[in-house]
């Protein structure tokens, strides 16, 4: 990302593109309550990493997150953003340098998508051209068509689209830190998976420091570079990368929370792109049958895969397709499940099982086939040495 678009147009705090965040013995106690909501919370998030705060409801994860941008006051202790205490800054000023995405998204219904995203830039006094360019850039970044979406109102968008606009809005001034409170919580499971993948892809490009709150341990393992598991009363149970959490849980609470099927959870750490895929025998309509048969020869799948001009999968071919001189479009089955190269192995396994398929074509972000993933490959991955298992965004 160009540093010219960063948050510090003018002003006293030169923040880097991604900031480090440190919780130092942070405590939050509400008046009249015996137990503190957050107690002696200490951990550091290195710049450019996603830290997931996860735990049962009432564990203080959202409270902890909201203390970072001072939506909730810190009772004791301190939070340091790039070494500077957040208590030193004026709240409104501080918040303009931190991206904020909440579960209900909170898009302003009376503003267009473009105006919504432009909110903080306008507050910082950016000129109109710069804002317009940035809005278009951000919309493309979150996979929305600027021309179509720019002038729409939130009411005219689907849930998934609104969520993307929310993320775009949070990224508007290229803040060094992002706070996200169950941002995909209000989305249906199918689209949630897609949005998670897209966000991880995004993170690979822009490398922000992110504090991500969720109650779902599976989402935490998938999204986090580091995970902070909190127990009731805001006490830190363990702070570690996902693999370490799965393999060396620090105490019975963590073990219980993470779940017994840790082996399968490990599958959430690897992506389709991480494993060696089978070669896919790709043929197009009209290709000479001899060539098609040749491809089939050294493939591990029994049937050729018909693709279109852009390499998108259309289906598995039947014998009759290879009967004549040239390949014809005679399918024996549709290509489902079509797997995304950025899918985590766990989701890929689930898709294969739901279609009762032994294997499925893998496509890249343009939809073109790059290989075939099979259950065989997955069971091999399950037996892989844990030391080699990488963490969340690093895997991308």
């Amino acid at each position: 990302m160009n540093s010219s678009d960063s948050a510090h147009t003018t002003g006293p705090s030169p923040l880097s593109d991604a900031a480090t965040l440190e919780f130092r013995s942070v405590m939050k106690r509400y008046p009249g309550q015996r137990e503190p909501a957050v107690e002696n919370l200490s951990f550091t998030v290195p710049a450019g990493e996603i830290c997931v705060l996860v735990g049962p409801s009432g564990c203080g994860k959202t409270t902890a997150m909201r203390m970072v941008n001072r939506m909730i006051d810190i009772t004791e202790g301190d939070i340091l953003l790039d070494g500077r205490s957040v208590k030193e800054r004026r709240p409104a000023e501080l918040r303009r340098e931190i991206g904020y995405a909440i579960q209900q998204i909170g898009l302003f219904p009376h503003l267009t998508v473009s105006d919504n995203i432009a909110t903080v830039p306008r507050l910082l006094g950016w000129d109109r051209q710069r804002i317009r360019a940035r809005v278009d850039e951000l919309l493309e970044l979150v996979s929305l068509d600027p021309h179509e979406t720019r002038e729409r109102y939130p009411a005219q968008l689907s849930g998934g689209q609104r969520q993307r606009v929310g993320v775009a809005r949070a990224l508007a001034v290229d803040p060094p830190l992002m706070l996200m409170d169950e941002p995909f919580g209000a989305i249906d499971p199918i689209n949630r998976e897609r949005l998670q993948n897209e966000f991880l892809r995004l993170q690979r490009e822009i490398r922000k420091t992110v504090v991500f709150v969720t109650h779902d341990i599976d989402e935490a393992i998938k999204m986090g570079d580091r995970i902070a598991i909190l127990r009731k009363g805001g006490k830190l149970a363990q702070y570690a990368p996902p693999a370490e959490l799965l393999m060396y849980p620090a105490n019975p609470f963590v073990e219980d929370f993470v779940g017994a099927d840790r082996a399968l959870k490990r599958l959430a750490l690897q992506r389709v792109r991480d494993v060696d895929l089978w070669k896919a025998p790709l043929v197009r309509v009209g290709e000479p049958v001899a060539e098609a048969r040749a491809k089939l020869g050294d493939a591990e799948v029994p049937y050729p895969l018909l693709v279109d001009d852009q390499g998108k999968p259309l289906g598995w071919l039947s014998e009759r397709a290879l009967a004549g001189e040239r390949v014809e479009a005679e399918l024996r089955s549709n290509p489902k499940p079509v797997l995304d190269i950025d899918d985590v192995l766990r989701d890929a396994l689930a898709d294969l099982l739901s279609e009762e398929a032994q294997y499925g074509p893998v496509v890249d972000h343009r939809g073109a086939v790059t290989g075939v993933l099979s259950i065989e490959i997955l069971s091999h991955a399950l037996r892989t040495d844990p030391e080699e298992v990488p963490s969340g965004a690093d895997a991308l």
Partner: protein
Amino acid sequence: MSPLLAQVEIRERDDTCVADNGFCPDWIADNFDRYVDPFFQHVLLTVVAMGIGFAISFTLALVAYRRRWLINPVTQVTGVLYTIPSIAAFFLLLPITGRGFLTATIALVSYVLLIIFRNVLTGLDNVPADIKDAGRGMGLTDRQLLWRVEVPLALPEIMAGLRIAATTTVGLATLAFFAGAGGLGEQIFADITFKSNVVVAGVLAVLLAAALDGLILLAQRAVTPWTRAVSAA
């Protein structure tokens, strides 16, 4: 005690339609300019009362929105003012402000205070909490949040209140002549038994109310374009 005041007769005796006390289009056409001045007085009364009333109650609502303890007292006071019938109000004010436009305006203003105060407050209170949270989290100060988010989102409710205030004020302003402020009511009162007179003045008042209602509705549509955006897939 005579049932009817001695009234100024406005009919001419020799017209048969008029003498029969029917509905006489000719007479109306001839005498229409009788109604012009009262009509404009009526408009003036309504617009001025609404303008002042809005200014006062909108400000009160904004203050009470942040200082919640004010809501109850203000509601009670404006509620009492709302309940006092306008005629009574005119004459209660008479010893203090005398006859004329001022007295009528004060009474009319006090009537709309509750309506607008309540609607502004409801509109602001109805802004969803998550939107306010998102706004604050993004770095909007309280004042920026109020003017850029909360007030715009409260506009539909506010304009609805204005429409109600407008139509009721037009109705009440027909009684303003009791305070010596003229208006269409004066014309009605001038010959209350003459059908043509009553119909013209009455219809003009209703038309005025409808026109103001429509104008405010149009204004509402203009300033709240997002409410008309149809949900697309």
